[in-house]
């Protein structure tokens, strides 16, 4: 009898251990329950905060640092085409307006999840100028397989000459 209890307990621990690696499904909700997270409301991104549409895209900060802000939503990234300078550390800040999405920069090892209610941040340095596809790598619904953005990595001086003072993107106009 005791042996069986021990066995069941061990299996429960293994099961929970397995769950604990599901970071976004298990750990994050627990963290929220414990009162963590400032609570970015996915429904009001367009009304206030750093993800309003006029603030999306690449922004040049002090000392030439570059920050890219993006929203992932069913089934488009906004901006759909991002432009960044080569050989500069670029900080991405992304969130989602609905489901969990994942940006994956094809041709590099970089990827970043977009989670509703959260801002995920990561800093990447792209060394090779060129155009990269940025498909969504987390199933997010019926249009998931066509959810695909673009990343243009351009030489530094070329980046500097793009629309100074605005948020930079390479959306067609």
């Amino acid at each position, binding site marked *: 009898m005791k042996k069986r209890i021990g066995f069941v307990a061990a299996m429960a621990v293994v099961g929970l251990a397995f769950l604990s690696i599901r970071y976004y499904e298990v750990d994050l909700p627990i963290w929220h329950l414990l009162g963590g997270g400032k609570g970015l409301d996915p429904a009001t991104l367009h009304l206030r905060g750093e993800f309003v549409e006029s603030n999306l895209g690449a922004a040049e900060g002090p000392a030439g640092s570059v920050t890219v802000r993006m929203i992932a939503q069913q089934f488009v990234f906004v901006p759909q085409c991002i432009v960044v300078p080569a050989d500069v550390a670029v900080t991405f800040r992304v969130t989602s307006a609905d489901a969990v999405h994942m940006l994956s920069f094809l041709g590099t090892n970089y990827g970043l999840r977009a989670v509703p209610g*959260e801002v995920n941040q990561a800093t990447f340095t792209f060394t090779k100028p060129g155009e990269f596809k940025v498909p969504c790598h987390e199933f997010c619904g019926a249009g998931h397989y066509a959810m695909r953005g673009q990343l243009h990595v351009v030489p530094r001086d070329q980046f500097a000459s793009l629309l100074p003072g605005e948020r930079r993107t390479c959306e067609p106009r």
Partner: protein
Amino acid sequence: MSHASRVSRAPTAVFWLATLLGLFAIPLSLAKNHSPAQPANSTPPLRIPSDVAWTQETLTIISSGDSFRGLLLARRCNHCHGEEGFSSVPAYPNLAGLDRLSFWKQVEDFRSGKRISPIMQTIAEGLAARDSADLAAYYALLPTASDPLENRAFPQPMQDPSRATIAIRLIVFGDGQRGIPPCQSCHGPVSYVKGAPRLDVQNGTYLAEQLDHFSNGSRTNDINVRMRSIAIQLTAEEKTALSECYGAGLGPGANSR
């Protein structure tokens, strides 16, 4: 069970418990660094596409609409949008079967001037906030099936039926290379995103106009640039094909012929 084995089991339980705690504690402590402070950047002038947000409050207001009151109010709209929600002028949108969220949002946007239309702005200003929920409830109920009076602009045969292939491909599959999701994944019938109206019983002329407005920036009321970023990528031929195809009642889901 011997006494000895009970003693030896105790550390095992503690070990498992500690393991378990550790497994959750590490990712949870990582979560603390999850959203560091926002770096200082000068911000360009704020632009808000629409004052509507899909919060619980908004959804409650919309779902409280009374369709009978809507029926009475709809007299003001029949003249342009048709007795049964199907207009006789191809440039005026059909409202029959339009989903409530979409209907309500467009009326709000006309009222606030976020979607520019001199005609509809005056009309929306004449409606109380409650009225638009009632009207939305009424129009959502109208059938899209038959045309007993034969006075509708919908459907209208395609000018060039060979363009249907282009349209159906975009509607059903989208274009993954360019990042254009299938229209039917947001506008139905496969799935709907909040605020995306059905297109299958809409007038082609009206659709063509709206696609142009989204792509040339004269309509900017879609939340988070959703529809603009798609329309901007469509070629002129694709836009014509899509609007003619939907306008001919050939879009998936259309049951009106």
